[in-house]
């Protein structure tokens, strides 16, 4: 099967600093893909390049066979790439429900009444239904993470990038978010998970890539990654 996302020889520099060099990844449709690496290894830079928040300097990014690396971020969202943010960025002047109406209005182009109904469905699925009319700046940390995911889902993506959706959550909360991501994947959405919580990534992913200093140092099943000496060195230091 053709990959849904094809990252080929992508590089990104900030001034003299090389954040990504020659990164290539293929992701299959429906895959659960894990991206790990120590702090500053380029994980978020890579997904910023994929989602369009940053432009890659070299290489190509193809989504469903179409080159997207020149497209503005909103166009990539409309094509089917959605993301959640590492630090939640809710539309804080809006209610939870209204947050979801933004992608419904701008990506799916639904009438407001239909959009509200579908948004409520998503909120029910994700466990935020009773908070639908709460102001989004009054949510707890885990609720904010869920809102990030809910808003990304409202854009009806075929590829969802979850950027540390579980950082700072308690054990049971991690399980909750993990279940949401599993359910999403079961409904046919390809998921890229970026995570520091090893247990979560290892449980979730079918395949894991480890970045270090902007390079892929290894790729494989969760078990093989944990056993890899390069990964251990990157995380623990030599």
């Amino acid at each position: 099967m053709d990959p849904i996302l094809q990252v080929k020889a992508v590089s990104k520099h900030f001034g003299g600093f090389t954040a990504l060099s020659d990164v290539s990844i293929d992701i299959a449709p429906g895959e659960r893909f894990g991206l790990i690496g120590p702090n500053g290894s380029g994980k978020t830079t890579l997904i910023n390049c994929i989602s369009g928040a940053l432009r890659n300097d070299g290489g190509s990014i193809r989504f469903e066979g179409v080159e997207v690396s020149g497209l503005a971020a909103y166009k990539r969202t409309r094509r089917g790439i959605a993301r959640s943010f590492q630090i939640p960025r809710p539309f804080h002047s809006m209610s939870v429900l209204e947050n979801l109406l933004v992608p419904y209005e701008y990506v799916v182009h639904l009438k407001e009444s239909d959009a509200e109904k579908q948004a409520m469905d998503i909120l029910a699925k994700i466990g935020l239904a009773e908070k639908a009319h709460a102001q989004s700046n009054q949510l707890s940390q885990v609720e904010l993470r869920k809102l990030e995911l809910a808003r990304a889902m409202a854009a009806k993506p075929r590829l969802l990038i979850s950027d540390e959706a579980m950082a700072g959550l308690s054990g049971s909360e991690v399980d909750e978010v993990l279940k949401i991501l599993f359910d999403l994947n079961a409904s046919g959405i390809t998921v890229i998970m970026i995570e520091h919580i090893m247990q979560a990534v290892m449980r979730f992913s079918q395949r894991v890539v480890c970045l270090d200093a902007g390079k892929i140092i290894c790729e494989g099943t969760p078990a093989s990654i944990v056993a890899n000496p390069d990964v251990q060195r990157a995380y623990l230091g030599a």
Partner: protein
Amino acid sequence: MKYWISAAVILALALGVALSRINEYFFFAGFVVLTFVVLATAWNILGGYAGYVNFGTAAFFGLGAYSATVLFKWQGAPLAVQIAGGALVCALLGFGVGLLTLRLRGIFFAIATVAVIFICETLMVNWRYVGGATGLQLLRPEVLAPFETYTRMLFVVMALLAVAAVSTARYIQTSWIGRGLRAIRDSEEAAEGSGVPTLKLKLFACTVSGALMGAAGAPWPMYLSFIEPASSFNLTYSVSALAMPMIGGTGHWIGPVIGALLLGSVQQIVTVTISNEINVLVVGVLLVLFVVLAPDGVVGLFRKWTRYFK
């Protein structure tokens, strides 16, 4: 519907008053207050909805006035054409300022817009055709029937512009554009990620806001029968256009209207009873009071009270 009826009533009222025997001074002052309704409403489209603080209102206002002057001197254009010309020129300037939002946010955007004032003012000071630094005396044409004096007519024209500006702002606020602009204000990255074409919306807001400011400035040369750079590009226009929505409330279209009517009227009263110089002080004190005590303006206070007494 209720809105359009009120708008029609207000316009009819303005026309009725203008045809009555009320003292000329009322129109002289009322014109200024209405100008500020337009400026504050226009400012709010970009500053309030999208969160980009434009400090360059004076540039748009002054350029609108000068565009009208040029059209008048060159072709003897009628007032409606002068206003359209001012709006068009300032829409273009607005588009240009909108391009600045590509790279500049927050305080840096605000500073860049201040620079636009100085650029425009310097250009006009050095342009002989419009009188340079000494300015230009303008002879008003004959007033149109049924108005008795030119000032009365200008008052009605500015009332029309105010209703047009408020209607535009109201449409933007309640449409899909408004939700997109609010998303931009809350988080530009998340807005992009939710499919909002942020650059297009910002350019749209800048252009519309600029056009309205230019339209507000265009009748001023006729109002004063005179134009001159220092007062046309005066920074107090920028300060007032920013302070009025803050005081009225930036989230709702009625906010800038309340702020402009309130502050504009107080300024007129202070000018007559105390001194023109105290004006700026009044604006400053009120702004500080509101920012500290009622950050959501009069509209926010009103909402809080209605919730409290319900």
